[in-house]
């Protein structure tokens, strides 16, 4: 609590305010008032764009809608799927039928039971209307869903797909069939009033760009006592992370939903009333080389690029040590089951990069210090603080190796559009959750894949992907998945720089009992966490 200093006499009015507050504080805490609702204020930097959980895909969208529309499974710290609403699941022997058992005590907040019909409705809508990334993850093999009983759903598949259940279980929020419109109009549904929730909270009011208020529901079986300990959760939008951190320190916010930039984390860690929680990312930050832009189709050039990045400086300076190495593999060590620690890590070695380029016949005829024709644009999102920082380190360390990198830091929407059109030499970005290798490798490295920013088209990888996806158990998929990662590493299709240790901050003078979950998508604002958090006694 700041105290008025003697020099502050000009701010007399302010001093009086502080004095009044001090007296108030000395008088001791107010007796707990039964009518006074407990309220948790959560800060986000971006506004909620879409309240339809099937359509919304920004982090803010997910944080808010996660509290109302449950996913069927949850994720452990190493990315494995665990029971949540679904208690058990599996595949038939031929792999063409999948089944899932659900809890029997789930209710929607309007009193309707949560049943297998809701699950069947949701997946039918998602696949028929091809809504969002979920459709991409499950649409390929899904044929039909049947609610055989209120607590059991069966899915007919067109082909063996060992990732179908876990992809759907984690990535697809379930929406109420009795509230949402019929299949065909679901993606158009704005869901901007009269919300119905099967999570710990239900939204009661929305002020776009300002605040989103959610109240506790009485029927959430996962919370101790069947109800969240706080009465109200308020998401407040702070467009600037600096202002957000100030609000947390001033006590206007109780929790910041987004990960804290390293510089602020350092300052916040000195504040005794604020606790920082470290959560490893399930994704990674990387650069992808566009193979359709010569000379990036030349393996030697890509290898030279990989040896021209000062990885250590990026992790230590740009990320302030809050990052780990994935051994240049597209499977981070956080995914302990899948990770392969025998892959050879790229090292920063400008001499070797030069040697590789010279061996491949590149020269510096014009004497400008860069090999001729070895000039690349590096596309990134100017607003992503960490990436913008390490992009500069990449440029400077590449220059040491005679490689010219031109930074193309763009405004977010322009950046996304350019990446979507594959209008870049080198793409820099980061993934939030990459937990199911067979699924994400397919999106990122199959020819025409949704996020194949390198335009990779490699028959060997496609063959291994088919093999991994046909496997109905993780053990069976392990071999091909690791082989894909090895091939990507050898061919430098992707250069993974680090996985981040996210830092999240909350006011620990007031609150305790958060349940951290992996990645910045779940972090401290996941439904279980906000249902469990309670005021410090």
């Amino acid at each position, binding site marked *: 609590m700041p105290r008025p200093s003697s020099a502050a006499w000009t701010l007399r009015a302010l001093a009086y305010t502080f004095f009044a507050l001090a007296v108030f504080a000395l008088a001791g805490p107010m007796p707990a008032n039964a009518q006074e609702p407990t309220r948790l204020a959560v800060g986000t930097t971006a506004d909620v764009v879409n309240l339809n959980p099937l359509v919304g895909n920004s982090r803010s969208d997910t944080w808010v809608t996660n509290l109302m529309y449950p996913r069927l499974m949850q994720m452990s710290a190493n990315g494995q799927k665990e029971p949540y609403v679904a208690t058990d699941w599996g595949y038939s022997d031929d792999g063409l039928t999948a089944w899932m058992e659900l809890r029997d005590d789930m209710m929607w907040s309007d009193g309707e039971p949560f049943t297998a019909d809701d699950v069947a409705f949701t997946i039918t809508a998602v696949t028929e209307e091809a809504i969002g990334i979920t459709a991409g993850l499950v649409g390929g093999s899904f044929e039909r869903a049947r609610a055989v009983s209120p607590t059991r759903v069966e899915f007919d598949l067109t082909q063996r797909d060992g990732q179908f259940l876990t992809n759907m279980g984690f990535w697809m929020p379930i929406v109420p069939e009795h509230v949402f419109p019929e299949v065909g109009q679901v993606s158009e549904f704005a869901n901007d009033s009269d919300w119905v929730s099967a999570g710990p909270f239900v939204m009661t009011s929305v002020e776009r760009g300002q605040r989103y208020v959610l109240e506790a529901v009485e029927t959430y079986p996962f919370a101790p006592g069947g109800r969240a300990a706080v009465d109200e959760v308020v998401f407040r939008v702070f467009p*600037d992370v600096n202002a957000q951190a100030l609000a947390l320190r001033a006590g206007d916010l109780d929790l910041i939903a987004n990960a804290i930039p390293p*510089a602020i984390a350092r300052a916040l860690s000195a504040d005794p009333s604020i606790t920082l929680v470290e959560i490893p990312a399930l994704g990674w930050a990387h650069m992808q080389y566009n193979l359709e832009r010569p000379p990036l189709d030349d393996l030697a050039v890509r290898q030279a690029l990989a040896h021209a990045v000062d990885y250590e400086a990026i992790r230590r300076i740009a990320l302030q040590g809050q990052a780990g190495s994935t051994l240049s593999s597209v499977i981070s060590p956080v995914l302990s089951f899948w990770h392969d620690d025998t892959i050879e890590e790229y090292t920063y070695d400008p001499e070797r990069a030069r040697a590789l380029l010279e061996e491949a016949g590149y020269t510096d005829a014009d004497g400008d210090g860069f090999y001729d024709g070895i000039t690349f644009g590096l596309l990134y999102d100017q607003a992503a603080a960490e990436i913008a920082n390490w992009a500069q380190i990449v440029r400077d360390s590449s220059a040491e190796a005679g490689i010219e990198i031109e930074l193309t830091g763009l405004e977010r929407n322009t950046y996304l559009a350019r990446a979507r059109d594959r209008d870049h030499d080198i793409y820099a970005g980061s993934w939030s959750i990459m937990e199911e290798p067979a699924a994400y490798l397919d999106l990122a490295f199959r020819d025409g894949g949704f996020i194949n920013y390198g335009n990779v088209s490699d028959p060997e990888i496609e063959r291994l992907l088919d093999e991994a996806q046909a496997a109905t158990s993780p053990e069976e998929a392990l071999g091909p998945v690791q082989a894909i990662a090895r091939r990507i590493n050898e061919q430098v299709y992707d250069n993974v720089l680090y996985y981040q240790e996210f830092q999240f901050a909350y006011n620990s003078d007031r609150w305790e009992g958060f349940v951290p979950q992996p990645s910045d998508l779940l972090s401290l604002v996941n439904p279980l966490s906000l249902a469990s958090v309670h005021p410090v006694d």
Partner: protein
Amino acid sequence: MTEVTQSGIAAEEVQAPADPSPRRRTWRAFRQNPLGMGSLAVIAILAVVSAAAPLIADFPSGYGEEILVGPSATHWFGTDELGRDIFAEVIWGGRISMIIGFAASFLAILIGVTVGITASYAPKLDPLLSMLVDVSLALPVLPLMILVAALVGPSVETLVLVIALFSWPEVARIVRSQALSVTRLPYVDAARTIGGSHLWIMTRHLLPAVAPVIVVAVVLTASRAVLSEAGLSFLGLGDPNSWSWGKILYNAQRSGALTIAWWATLFPSLAILLLVVSATLVSIAYNDARNPKTREA
């Protein structure tokens, strides 16, 4: 204002040999104004420092081990979130800020003066050009600048063009109103009577008459352009490959250093403040010096 300038112009045309020329009288009056001279000195120092940046500090690149450390003997202005020297960033940033400021101002003046003089000299074009100026002045400049810069992609050239494209209407309006009063003077009619071409009349008789206004406009437009550049860079639309004062501020905001490292924002802000205030004071002092009423006072 108009009358005053007219008398100045009239004096110039007469070229009384006994009297010092208006230019010299203006300069003498300007020299006696300490605020104007001081500001001119500040601008000169900033320009010299920017031009001599390579001699003063290394181009800020790479990274340093001391992250967000306050001002010290080794880092006069402290360090930023990658441990780079903010003093060097401000010095090198001044280069780009001033280059953009003057290039954009030059372009804006070029367009503005052309449009302004044409409008004043050609009565048939005047309504059209005036409407164009009015419409341009009514546009919401910042959102449009952001839109264009975002679509085209950030670079120094983009910034110069964007800022110039949205700064010329004000110049055009001032020049037009100034030139309008001159086109009705007898000597312009005389020039026309002796068979002077339109271009000759516009460049040899109208342009000199509005020159003082242009001088003021150059200085003010340049300082506004520096501000616009800082604004666009602060919004993340600056050139990622070079330094500018706005970019230092943007880096501080983006990395979260805004509230924890005062030095990361104070020094670039001071540089912007110094340049803009000096430019404004110089133009005021010049105006005063040119004006016989204030000159004699």
